């Protein structure tokens, strides 16, 4: 059964259809927990930002949880990953400790980067998380370089890189697509199409209607999927990863989703109507998965327990992060050069 195309802007070209995986209830329940955790961390961060405890630009991935959790399940834990400033979800899905994540956003000493990187620069090399980036598009060639390294060393590892719908028109993307395809690098280009580039709907500045078709210009294998369905994401990334590991080169995945929160903390969202957002809530990833689980016989009580458990875990993480000390001022001057 092909997927039911719920996302309202999925094109209906036959060649975009991908069979969703049908995962066990156990796996789906674990995925549900991970997605709820991401959602709760993001919500907590928004609260902290509102109370003035977080400066700078903080972008949450509320609405993108299916992407991160589907991807994490489909890849090996040491596969390389790079992503954007909107990258909390990938890190949490791959196993980053929420304590250290929140501490980092608050600029505290227990942050994974001692408070130097913050919200826009999530990473943990021990989990294959090789860096989030504040510059649109910049992380994309990094992942291609990791894929190149893997190919040169014959490691069998692959790379995945996430970027937004707005990133397509940063020149470096195009340079990287060409080289990656020409050299058949083991890489997955994953576009999280959430319909907005900051305050601009993507159609206003793009001459390409279906983003995934763009990658076809390079002869790249390319899919468009409903990224609100974690089983679809899982299936697509699994297929792409198999191709990459088999030496067949890159895959481009356009995952249609929706950003339910503002572009960043403090965004007043004057550029879209509350109705538009409300309509999207009906098929956002958590709703879709919860419905699926219930349809397949899971009971609401178990899910409620999970939510409560996560609630407590995240509350504890927030507390931990708030109590974490400031980094020592001397840290300001370290790490400029590696030894």
């Amino acid at each position, binding site marked *: 059964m092909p997927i039911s195309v719920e996302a309202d802007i999925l094109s209906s070209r036959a060649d975009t259809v991908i069979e969703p995986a049908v995962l066990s209830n156990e796996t789906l329940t674990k995925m549900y927990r991970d997605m709820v955790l991401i959602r709760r961390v993001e919500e907590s961060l928004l609260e902290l930002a509102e109370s003035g405890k977080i*400066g*700078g630009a903080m972008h949450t991935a509320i609405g993108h949880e299916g992407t991160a959790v589907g991807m994490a399940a489909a890849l090996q834990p040491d596969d390389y990953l790079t992503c954007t400033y909107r990258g909390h979800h990938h890190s949490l899905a791959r196993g980053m400790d929420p304590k250290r994540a929140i501490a980092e956003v608050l600029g505290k000493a227990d942050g994974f980067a001692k408070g130097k*990187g913050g919200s826009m*620069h999530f990473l943990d090399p021990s989990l294959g998380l090789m860096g989030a980036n504040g*510059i649109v598009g910049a992380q994309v060639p990094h992942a291609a370089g990791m894929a190149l390294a893997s190919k040169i060393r014959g490691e069998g590892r692959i790379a995945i890189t996430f970027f937004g719908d707005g990133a397509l028109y*940063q020149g470096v993307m195009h340079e990287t697509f060409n080289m990656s395809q020409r050299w058949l690098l083991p890489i997955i280009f994953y576009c999280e199409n959430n319909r907005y580039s900051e*305050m601009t709907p993507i159609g206003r*500045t793009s001459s390409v209607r279906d983003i995934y078709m763009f990658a076809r210009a390079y002869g790249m294998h390319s899919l468009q999927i409903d990224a609100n369905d974690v089983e679809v994401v899982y299936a697509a990334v699994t297929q792409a990863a198999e191709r990459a590991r088999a030496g067949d080169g890159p895959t481009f995945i356009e995952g249609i989703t929706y950003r339910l929160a503002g572009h960043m903390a403090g965004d007043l969202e*004057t550029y879209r109507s509350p109705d538009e957002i409300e309509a999207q809530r009906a098929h956002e990833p958590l709703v879709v998965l919860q419905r699926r689980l219930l349809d397949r016989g899971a009971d609401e009580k178990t899910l409620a327990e999970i939510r409560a458990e996560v609630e407590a875990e995240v509350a504890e993480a927030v507390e931990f992060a708030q109590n974490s000390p400031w980094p020592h001022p001397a840290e300001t001057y370290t790490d400029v050069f590696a030894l």
Partner: protein
Amino acid sequence: MRTTTFIQAINEALKEEMRRDESVFLIGEDVGRYGGLFRVTRNLFEEFGEDRVIDTPISEQGFMGMATGAAIVGMRPIVELMYMDFFLVCADQIFNQAAKMHYMTGGLVNVPMVIRGQHGGGKRYGSQHSQCVESAFAQWPGIKVLAPSTPYDAKGLLVSAIRDNNPVVFIEHKMLYFTRGELPEAGEELIVPIGKADVKREGKDLTLVSFSYTLLEALEAAEELQAEYGIDVEVVDLRSIVPLDTETIYTSVEKTGRLLAVHESQSNCGIGSEIVARIYEEAPHLLKAPARRLGMAPASLPVSQKLEEELLPWKKNIKAAVLEMLQPVAA
């Protein structure tokens, strides 16, 4: 006179120049319908329409190059970079193209364009969104560099920048946006000339040269140094980094005998070092003690509030630098 915010002053300069001259147009990310991420261009789309307030995709190299091309044929584009840090993704179009065009063509072509946007630390945006860029721009011949610190100078200099026949980078500091200051009524012509520094505080013990947001920190530091140590600092606001008004600097140093240049861009090869080198080249006899500069220590701004405060060459660090230079006076 009335008081307005820094943002308002810039918005007015844009609006009035666009009314005056049809060849002026705006281009950048979210500058149109949304009115700019920092709301600097608000209401302009409504008045001037989509041909003159152009929303772009995230293609800085492309639209910086298009602005250059439009300028070559006589338009006066104003390009907003959402964060000045992004000049790095379009650096070739700025330095190898727009800035060199007039020279390379033996004067056959002019490139009258303005590149504007906000930069700087203090808001915890981290390494990639807080870089101060004035010293990087100053290295390249063919582009003027402006960095006002008050709404008055902002409006007056932006008008001059728009009317200038060269590429001009107009730098706004994110900490300045909601500061307020006096401004003549809207519509009254206000022009501040490019290349003229302004003494923002008179003093006799030391000449402190600065600009942009750091200048406000310097003024506060000066007040505290006066109150706490009886040190009387003269504060010169460069306003223009290129061209540099060395005359005003030297006139001040003639009086004080001491020179300290302060800025938020990197210390290494920064405009502070340049000012020090310049005075030793042109007027070393004015100095009673070694001239100094205070810029950013070699690190890129971290997100953590505590580390950011430590690194920024602001009030605390400015006071320390002045005290170090005036130990005999202060002691």
